């Protein structure tokens, strides 16, 4: 088990910059998520940690050892591929024993080890089946088996649930997390599904366009987004941005959004220009008395809650309100925002403005 430290990692494919100067630390035993939209560089980062790609520059420390230029076989990590990458011409047993046989482990030891792993994963009964006929879940388990059988220092997982259908994914995610909790191995996990990342991860790195946008615990990232991208990417429906032009003094706890004064966490950074007033849907309250007016465009029933789409002077926003509260399409209502949760953004750069709320999270 090991700690992984990434320092100024960079990867370039020809003219294309896949990963730009990334740095973060994965603590021993952490379930670590690399989250971002497709093409953001998360998979490349993972592959560099595994040794499937060599970085253009930067360092990777595995247990304090610099390994960035070593081939994968010298790194002692396991990798679970998106498409599972099972050897299609071998049966389950041979798939799982392959890494052991490759290392020249004696036959009896291999047998014992495979049996043990099969027991952990509950796949003893399919050991002699060809992998071709297995269900998605079983394939997933075999792939995991092949990864854990070697007892590597760390696991790399590249969207391992991406190939499963939605219903089964949820179940498998729980199983995976449970397995991790049991083994406590350092795991780096790539996904583009924010819900999956929030659900499973101890820590999350959000990447976009080859850059690390934010690095932190799920709740931190949700509550205190560092950029508009992160705010938008995390959460469903995502954070609302009321666009406005205004001025914010340092230490102010109020801002004027389209002539309505709204409370915000105390500012730590003066700013003037195009801003966005970021508020999560569940932090919006419909109140006839409120000053901030909006027209109800649509409502979507979701059981105990409903999503209301509203048209405001700052653009269309969504609010999540209890389903018993009545909101009729076409009506004009007033909105209250929960001040302590609001983040203001510089619309030009997308950066969150420092405030009482997020000052512990934002660096520099």
């Amino acid at each position, binding site marked *: 088990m090991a700690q992984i430290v990434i320092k100024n990692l960079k*990867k*370039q*494919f*020809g003219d294309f910059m896949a990963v730009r100067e990334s740095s973060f630390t994965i603590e021993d035993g952490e379930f670590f998520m690399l989250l971002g939209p497709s093409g953001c560089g998360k998979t490349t980062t993972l592959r560099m940690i595994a*040794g*499937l*790609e*060599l970085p*253009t*520059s930067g360092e990777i420390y595995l247990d304090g050892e610099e390994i960035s230029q070593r*081939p*994968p076989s010298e790194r002692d990590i396991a990798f679970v591929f998106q498409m599972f990458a099972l050897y299609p011409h071998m049966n389950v047993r041979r798939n799982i024993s392959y890494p052991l046989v490759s290392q020249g482990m004696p036959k009896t030891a291999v047998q014992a080890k495979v049996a043990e792993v099969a027991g952990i994963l509950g796949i003893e009964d399919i050991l002699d089946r060809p992998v071709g006929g297995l269900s998605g879940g079983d394939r997933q388990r075999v792939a995991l088996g092949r990864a854990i059988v070697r007892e590597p220092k760390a696991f790399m997982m590249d969207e391992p649930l991406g190939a499963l259908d939605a219903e089964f994914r949820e179940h498998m995610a729980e199983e995976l997390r449970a397995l991790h909790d049991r083994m406590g191995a350092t795991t780096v996990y790539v996904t583009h599904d924010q819900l999956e990342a929030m659900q499973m991860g101890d820590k999350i790195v959000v990447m976009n366009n080859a850059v690390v946008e934010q690095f932190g615990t799920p709740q931190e990232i949700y509550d205190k987004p560092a950029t508009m991208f992160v705010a938008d990417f995390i959460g469903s429906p995502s954070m609302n941005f009321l666009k406005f032009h205004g001025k914010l003094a340092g230490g102010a706890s109020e801002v004027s959004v389209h002539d309505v004064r709204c409370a915000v966490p105390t500012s730590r950074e003066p700013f003037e220009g195009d801003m966005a007033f970021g508020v999560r849907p569940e932090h919006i309250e419909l109140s006839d008395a409120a000053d901030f007016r909006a027209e109800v465009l649509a409502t979507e029933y979701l059981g105990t809650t409903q999503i209301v789409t509203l048209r405001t002077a700052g653009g269309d926003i969504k609010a999540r309100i209890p389903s018993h509260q009545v909101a009729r399409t076409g009506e004009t209502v007033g909105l209250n925002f929960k001040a302590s949760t609001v983040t203001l953004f510089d619309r030009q750069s997308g950066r969150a403005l420092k405030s009482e709320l997020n000052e512990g999270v934002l660096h520099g």
Partner: protein
Amino acid sequence: MSSFSVNEPSVRTKWFAGTLVILYAIITMIPLVWIAMTGFKSPADAISYPPKYIIGSDSDAGFQPTLEGYVNLFTTRTRQTQDYLEANPPESWADEIVRKYDMVIVGPSKFGERFLNSVIIGFGSTFLSVFLGTLAAYAFSRFKIPLADDLLFFILSTRMMPPIAVAIPIFLMFRNLGLSDTHLGMILLYTAVNISLAVWLLKSFIDGIPTEYEEAALIDGYTRFQAFYKVVLPQAATGIASTAIFCLIFAWNEYAFAVLLTTANAQTAPPFIPTIIGIGGLDWPAIAAGVTLFLLPVMVFTILLRKHLLRGITFGAVRK
């Protein structure tokens, strides 16, 4: 520091692989280039030793290119007396060439005719096999046909039959039906051989067209047949085209049936080319010229077809 991926071969490996492959490609090409070259030699140069391989040089290894081979390929000539030759000056550049051997051109050779036969039979059978093949492939792809697998296997196995084994009864049948040595007979025969490839190949192309398209058309108010030709056919167009070229190449290259079932009327070029006779023995430059002309279209098609090559030769089983 260079970029590196596990699966990306190193520059040195690539260089090594490239060299070997190019070397093999060059070796492969030597016979073809040699034949093309021979077509432009005089008969004497063609059989000289050591071989002449430089164009237009005076050295021992050089030869003066001439169209003699092509003239001989396309004409029949006869030896004439000196008196006659003196009395009749050469009429054309081609005539001029054959005068060297005291000969005159008396008419065209059969090559043009045979070549034309190849074209007629090739295109005729190609059209028919692609036409019937498309229909059958569509049916096999979209409808539940009882014993479809057996039918498909049967269709494929017909192409595996040794042509000579099939030729015996075909010969008898054609004799009785008066189809021997006719274009129609050969077209039907080649169609029957080609249709297996056409059905398999087109089925794989049509299988690749999602049924939703036709279903959408059915719901939009079209009949099944209209859906077939308005929606499926246009999308299968590339498949149909490459199938057609494969069929054409087969009919073009076929030898066994041609030599056994045709004598004159409908004989194609492959059985004819080896029999080109010059003065004395085989006229190698003329044969080489015929070979060159005959192979050229196939080479062009091969280059056009390179993307679909695999599909064609594995009956559509493997996509590239």
